[in-house]
């Protein structure tokens, strides 16, 4: 199991002090895909870099299968994609880049070549195996970044925005690989801004806001919880809304209101406030992860504001 245990991190420089993480805890079990979501600057990358040992936290610790950072074999448990744009030795071909990555982690040369060939095949890059790294397109480089991250077949994989800037085909290839890896028992932690990607892939959702984890739940549980709180209210005619203390949107016709309550009981409060506007219907509706995300990050920001 990969365990992040209440890490805090403040970056200090001469000019400013940035509190990036506050008491962040997370777990990734084998076979799980955990989506770490958050707006820009919420601390996703810092969390991932801390697990990789690229950032030393002020407080807290990280362990993988009981090994702490700094112990031998900690790194062998881990593969990470940190930057999809910059990952290749420019003077080596894709094939050589992968052989090197495997070899430097201790694979014998024939084994490393096999693995490199397998990965290039898997991601549809075999044709480009000998092309100079500088001639690869952005999408190909992103795929290579993924290949480098999983080159040594580690039990835990961290992916920071893996599908950023990929076209649909390439993203599909990558998503299929991620699902396959989880099925094979790997634990995966990924960040993304594309919430539909997270919704398709993940089994668990953790949301960071202002450097704190504001929710950490199994995806099904989270969606179910929100199902009890999400309603669509249809009016007989366009209405002007009163002040509503919940997250809500009124569509352009002015007749369909979608709300997310903080509690199912607030339904009474909603009805009271909408009275006496003429209702046609009120029904529960399914929410998307994007709305849940917005509800958590907006709420947090209004608290801190």
């Amino acid at each position: 199991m990969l365990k992040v245990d209440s890490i805090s991190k403040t970056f200090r420089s001469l000019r400013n002090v940035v509190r990036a993480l506050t008491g962040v805890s997370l777990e990734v079990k084998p076979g799980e895909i955990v989506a770490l979501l958050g707006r820009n600057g919420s601390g996703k990358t810092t969390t991932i870099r801390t697990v990789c040992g690229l950032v030393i936290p002020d407080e807290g610790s990280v362990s993988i299968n009981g090994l702490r950072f700094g112990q031998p074999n900690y790194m062998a448990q881990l593969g990470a994609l940190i930057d999809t744009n910059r990952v290749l030795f420019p003077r080596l071909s894709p094939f050589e880049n992968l052989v090197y990555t495997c070899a430097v982690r201790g694979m014998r040369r024939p084994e490393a070549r096999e693995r490199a060939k397998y990965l290039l095949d898997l991601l549809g890059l075999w044709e480009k195996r000998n092309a100079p790294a500088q001639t690869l397109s952005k999408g190909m480089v992103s795929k290579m970044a993924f290949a480098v991250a999983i080159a040594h077949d580690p039990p835990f994989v961290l992916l920071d925005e893996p599908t950023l800037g990929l076209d649909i085909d390439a993203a599909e290839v990558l998503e299929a690989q991620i699902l396959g890896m989880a099925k094979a028992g790997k634990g995966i932690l990924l960040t993304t801004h594309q919430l539909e990607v997270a919704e398709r892939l993940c089994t668990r959702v953790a949301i960071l806001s202002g450097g704190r984890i504001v929710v950490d739940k199994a995806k099904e549980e989270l969606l179910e919880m929100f199902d009890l709180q999400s309603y669509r209210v249809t009016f007989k005619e366009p209405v002007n809304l009163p002040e509503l203390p919940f997250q809500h949107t009124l569509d352009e016709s002015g007749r369909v209101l979608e709300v997310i309550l903080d509690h199912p009981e607030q339904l009474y409060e909603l009805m009271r406030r909408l009275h006496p506007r003429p209702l046609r219907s009120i029904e529960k509706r399914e929410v998307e992860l994007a709305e849940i995300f917005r509800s958590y990050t907006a709420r947090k920001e209004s608290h801190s504001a």
Partner: protein
Amino acid sequence: MRKLAILFGAEAWRAWLEEVRYPLQFVMGLVFMGLIFFLLKGVAQLSGVSSSNPETIFRLLVGYLLGLLAMSALSGIAAQISREAKSGTLENMVLSGHGLTAFFVTQALARLAPILLNTVILFLVLTNHNKINFSLSWEMLPAIGLFYIAALGLGLVVGALALLFKEIRTFFMLAQLLVFPAVIANLPQLEWFPLVLGASVIRDLLQGSAVEAYWWILLLAETTAVLCVGVLLFELADREARKRGLLGHE
């Protein structure tokens, strides 16, 4: 130990690929360095040194080549750090599970072969051209080894600065301005400085004179000290860079 062997194997392979793919660079480097030597000789002549004096030319030649060797070690680690930061491969170095110190020292050693080859070719060509006689002995190996390790120790200090401050090109220029004259001129006031001491031992050996045990011990002690300081500072800088979250940033 096994880990270091793995790392060295991978790095040597990469060095081979990167150098072989650009053989022109090797040849051009050779020609360029040869030309600079003649430039140096010309400057020496202008300032009144007789170029027919084999003693002076010998001193200039050995100093120049050792200066090149020292500079490669001195700036090599820092240059490699900024290269890896630019290509984004520094993070993967860390993820490979080898410490950064082990990584960059191994890398420098893995890239030593072409540099040594370069130095030896230039030495043979230029001594032949200038009709200089020299003597070879087995003691040359530890002497050059210690000279190089001391330079590598200083290279780690420069590398430590590169990890924290990124832009240190001006520093390189200054280092170059200091190292070459120090190694070539062999001033008595600078005799204690590790690189100058190593260079004078090597020069004595090439001229066929024996080197007293005292100088060997001093050289060994200084080299060990410089290497230890280098490793220590590099490790400290590595830790500091991770605390500031700078590692791998350009």
